């Protein structure tokens, strides 16, 4: 038999299929099997490992295949090829962690089941070429996650957080179901390659597709905990640590993935991208301010995720699709590590490292920063979709790094690191852009329509938390700073508000 690339591409199905036995097993049976003191959970790990092999192999064919078929199961292209191995690896890591972490707990088997179910749903979402399957996977993922979030079902806090999420998710589901109808109305098919082809062929001709784009954007914002629907996310620390890790590293990205996958519908109407830009930007600013004040490790990480998701949406709004994908993957890896290691005992509180910083050092630091910015601007001219706003945001970060290194470390290694990072970033970005070329995109027209003044405004907005941080450091006793601090520390009171609403709609017994 002669295997075609399209057939071989189906190897990517191996990964969700491997998780299916655990995902579909009855919860009580799983509890019984894994309640024993000697149940090591080797089978789930082996299966997830096998799935990971398939996922790692699949890009070989995913990247070669031509998009377009009307019947294909799997969506070819770079987006699938990057996301699938990422999700499969994360699954194995979190699964292995949970199996040991929850050892001895009576409901460990159930946890393994729902973790596998959630992950399998995410993987189906990533690989499917059919919009109906996509939406079904989307809803399954959310419902399975609900089971993980309420793992400690006696905890009122866990119930409130899960219910908040449940309500927002169902609104998102409604958006996607409507999208299904709108797409069917204008395309008479749910095969995504066909839909994208139609959309790209006749821009402007499909008002219903453009409206579907807006619904997709709303569903994505709800999924990725964007302002003001973010309050459930920092509250989900009421579930065991690996749930947080998997959610912050994997599931929360589904919103971004949705936008990337459907980017050809999103770009049909400029308003969609403006919504992403504004909501994403506001979320990034608000959440990073709140993050500054948080006093617990996990809540701080939670608000950091909200901010990063906001920035990722912001990038989508600017049409920097490949950078958004880089953000998803890099943030996922970092956040998985950060959550799984969040129990690291705090080091003894050392006295802050005091160095005398002379004028000469400041001069040196300024020179290093200047050189870095020039280096960066030169580098970013080679960017695939050169974008002044993003280059500016990243330049801000590079200046911080350069300044800190020059002031504190003052050695060759530090300067090398400062030079290496921007170059590395560019390399990663170019690589991803090439991979994405075929599947994501559409015109990033937005750039043209945005004036320099507006871009500077955006930049200033993103720099706002930094300015507040500086003001707080310089004038800690000013009444204005203290007033702002109290409001920010309480997350602008959105959480008590959301809790009160949820308790009114769907009360939890204390």
């Amino acid at each position, binding site marked *: 038999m002669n295997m075609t690339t399209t057939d071989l591409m189906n190897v990517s199905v191996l990964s969700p299929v491997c998780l299916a036995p655990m995902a579909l097993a009855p919860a009580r049976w799983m509890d019984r099997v894994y309640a024993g003191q000697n149940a090591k959970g080797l089978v789930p790990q082996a299966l997830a490992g096998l799935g990971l092999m398939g996922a790692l192999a699949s890009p070989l064919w995913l990247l070669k295949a031509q998009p377009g078929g009307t019947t294909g199961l799997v969506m070819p292209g770079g987006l699938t090829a990057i996301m699938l191995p990422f999700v499969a690896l994360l699954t194995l890591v979190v699964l292995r962690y949970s199996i040991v972490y*929850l050892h001895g707990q009576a409901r460990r088997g159930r946890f393994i089941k729902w973790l596998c179910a959630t992950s399998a749903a995410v993987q189906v979402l990533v690989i499917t070429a059919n919009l109906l399957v996509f939406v079904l996977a989307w809803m399954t993922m959310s419902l399975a996650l609900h089971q993980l979030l309420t793992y400690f079902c006696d905890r009122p806090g866990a119930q409130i957080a899960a219910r908040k999420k449940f309500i927002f998710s169902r609104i998102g589901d409604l958006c996607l179901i409507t999208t299904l109808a709108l797409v069917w109305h204008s395309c008479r098919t749910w095969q995504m390659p066909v839909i994208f082809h139609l959309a790209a062929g006749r821009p402007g001709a499909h008002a219903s597709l453009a409206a579907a784009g807006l619904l997709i954007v709303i569903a994505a914002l709800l999924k990725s905990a964007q302002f003001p629907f973010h309050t459930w996310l*920092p509250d989900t*620390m009421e579930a065991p640590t690996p749930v947080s890790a998997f959610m912050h590293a994997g599931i929360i990205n589904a919103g971004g993935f949705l936008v990337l996958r459907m980017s050809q519908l999103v770009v049909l109407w400029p308003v969609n991208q403006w919504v992403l830009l504004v909501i994403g930007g506001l979320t*990034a600013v608000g959440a990073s301010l709140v*993050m500054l004040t948080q*006093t*617990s490790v996990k809540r701080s990480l939670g608000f950091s995720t909200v901010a990063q998701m906001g920035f990722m949406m912001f990038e989508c709004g600017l049409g920097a699709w490949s950078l958004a994908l880089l953000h998803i993957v890099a943030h996922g890896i970092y956040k998985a590590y950060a959550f799984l290691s969040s129990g690291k*005992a705090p080091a003894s509180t050392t006295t802050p490292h005091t160095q005398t910083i002379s004028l000469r050092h400041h001069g040196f630091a300024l020179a290093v920063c200047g050189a870095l910015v020039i280096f960066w601007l030169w580098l970013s001219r080679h960017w695939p979709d050169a974008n002044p706003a993003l280059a500016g945001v*990243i330049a801000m970060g590079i200046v911080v790094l350069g300044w800190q290194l020059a002031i504190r470390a003052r050695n060759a290694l530090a300067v090398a690191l400062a030079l290496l990072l921007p170059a590395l*970033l560019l390399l990663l970005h170019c690589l991803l852009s090439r991979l994405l070329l075929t599947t994501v995109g559409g015109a990033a027209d937005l750039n043209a329509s945005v004036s320099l003044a507006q871009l500077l405004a955006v930049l200033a907005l993103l720099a706002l938390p930094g300015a507040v941080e500086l003001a707080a450091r310089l004038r800690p006793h000013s009444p204005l700073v203290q007033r702002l601090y109290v409001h920010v520390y309480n997350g602008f009171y959105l959480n008590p508000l959301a809790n009160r609403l949820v308790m009114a709609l769907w009360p939890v017994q204390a």
Partner: protein
Amino acid sequence: MTATLLEEPPMRSPAATGQEQPGGPSARAGAIEAAGWVPPLWPLQNVIAVNPFMGLTHLPFASAIHRMGLALGRAAVWPANPPKTNGLSESLHHTNQAQQPLTFAGFCDRKLATAWDTFIVDEISSFCAARFDTGLARWRVDFSSQPLYTAWKQFASLDCTGKISGFGDMRALALALPQSPLDCINDALTQLQPADEAQPLLFYASLMSVAGWAGWLRQLAWPESPDAGQHNSLIDLLAIRLAFDITLLQKPAAAALLPAWRQCLALSVKHGVAATRPAANNLMTTLHAHETAFQERLLRDIKAHAASAADASAHSTRSPVQAVFCIDVRSEPYRRALEAVLPGVQTLGFAGFFGFAVNEAADTLRKQYPVLLASDLCVASTPKQSQAALAAGNGLAAAWKAFKGSTLSSYAFIEAAGAAFLPTLIAHCWPTSKAKSRSQNTPELTVENTNTGAGLTLQQQTRLAKGALTNMGLLKNQARLVLLCGHGSTSTCNPHTTALDCGACGGNTGEFNARLAAMVLNSPRVRAELLAAGITLPEDTWFVAGLHNTTTDTVELFDLQNVPESHTHDIQSLRQSLQQASDLARIYRAESIGLKPQAPKLAANITRRAKDWSQVRPEWGLVRNAGFVAARRDMTRGINLAAECFLHEYDYTLDATGSVLELIMTAPLVVASWINLQYFGSTLWPDQLSAGTKTLHNIVANIGVLEGNGGDLRPGLPLESLHNGREWVHIPRRLSAIIAAPRSMIDAVIQKHQLVKDLVDNRWLTLFATEDQGISFYRYTGECTWQPQQTPDASAP
């Protein structure tokens, strides 16, 4: 000694007269009294076991348990088994003997099915986290220049959470509150009108509703001066808590419950006097049964052993090696293993700081001694790396941290460096079995007095050396090689990792004290001084420092470069024996951590387990501790004590003045009882006095953990240190202490020290005395009276 023993300040206030105005002087006295009942809480950097009943030991055991139950809103019951559907947490809810919470908010919640008490605790906890954060938040408002209450007033006057949550507008209220916390408490009393005699109990319950932060406040003022009551930030906390409670009075439904609440409170006080509730009785019966079973087994084993080895005289011949271990229960199986592989060895038990109550001046000042002591001695410890390399490393780390955390750069950080965490992520998931050595690259200890103020004078060194030798019972018959073995643990991503380290070293690992003691005792100058003071150390006696890793059961030796050539062979053979003993000790322990004793690569598996970041039970710590034996090792050598006993070396024939016994009974015995009662409290009240499940731990303010999202700072032990998921591994039993000394000597100490008298007279521990090395025992029956203890015949099963 510079180290002075601090006695608990007596916290017995004059009985409330009941004649004064509410909130009069009696309110103040009641608040100070209740504050004295709150146990302190140490930070995660050095977790220290604290007796949760510390302030209640002047009460009989049963009354104290009852009072604790009243304060926590739940009567004590024997821990239920198996845990319910939900795994560990909440496992006791269903057996909860319904008892009314005593705080007004808690009472209203019970009647109205609301959750205001939770809300209040969350709010107070959130404020305290902001106030006491030691480096987690990048943006902090500095309220620390003000007293706690004033800072809270300012915070609350800006905070809209109360209004938005529907609790009540705290902003207006906070502005209207009086300036002084005592006035605030008086205001609250005027509004709540509790019976006067109920005030201390109400205050206690209010403070225990935020027991974690209350404990933190008490710890900040530790060690306490006798007039601690004068500037007590716990009074501030009490005022804050009561201010929340009276806000609830604005709600008509709550205000209507006020008379019922007063009645409930008065009833609780009445019952508190009688202290005979069925639940408590049931608990006492079960507790007695378990304690009696333990005591019978222990005494029978010792008696059987004494009968079989009656002619074994004290060590008249010189043993080749003496090994001194910490009294910690985990050293017992290791000592047993070492004695099995090296029959000539003499092992001894002593508090793991070896009497060297000295601060370690590293990057911070580490208090390497029990918290019951105070010491201003200090020895500098400098890392071997050069200062420049260290500074460069620190600078790089600081710059990297700023890059990661700054709001300007966090996006760039993720995109440029996020993916670089992939190898770390994978390495943490599948750790290698290569153990990290502590004896490599140890910091340099500068014992001698230096001009920086650190260091010990020759007199100080001699005094410490003399005290250590005297109290360890090493004044004569010292072996050629004396191993001073401290202990420490290894676990990865475990917030409570220091809870597994050495309590006698202030919740740190013990190598500093062992190394320091060995250095001082090996010093020729010190030995010359000792000789002048009449203490001879044989010339060929060499002290070597070691560290017992209680997680992996390996023992590492330190400073081997200093060992004289004459002793290198002895060290070699000691290392071999230690290795064999470690293998044996791991076999003893394998089953308890879910490994097969006969499995190949047991050591590698245990090391890997210690490095596994998802491992919530790296080791079992001091679980099941129940006994304390102060005697010569001969009395217990060869008995399998199953890691349930603290073993302290003591020979009363060498202690003519009774000073060694006095030390043992006022320090190690008290500490052992603290540890024992911490386990007791955490097991009986897992929802309030344990740290909750590790799977939800969330480090807060760099000092403690929350369970999940909010709630109070959690005191006590994590559930995973008490429970294996199916059953409680810890069996609550009060300490049973056996002291091999004449009763008159023991009585003398009891009469001299109120703290010890309280512990034994009020039944916080059971005391046995034996004068004949375990052939017959006397049980202490209170007020310095004893009665012969009937032990079952040695031949009986």
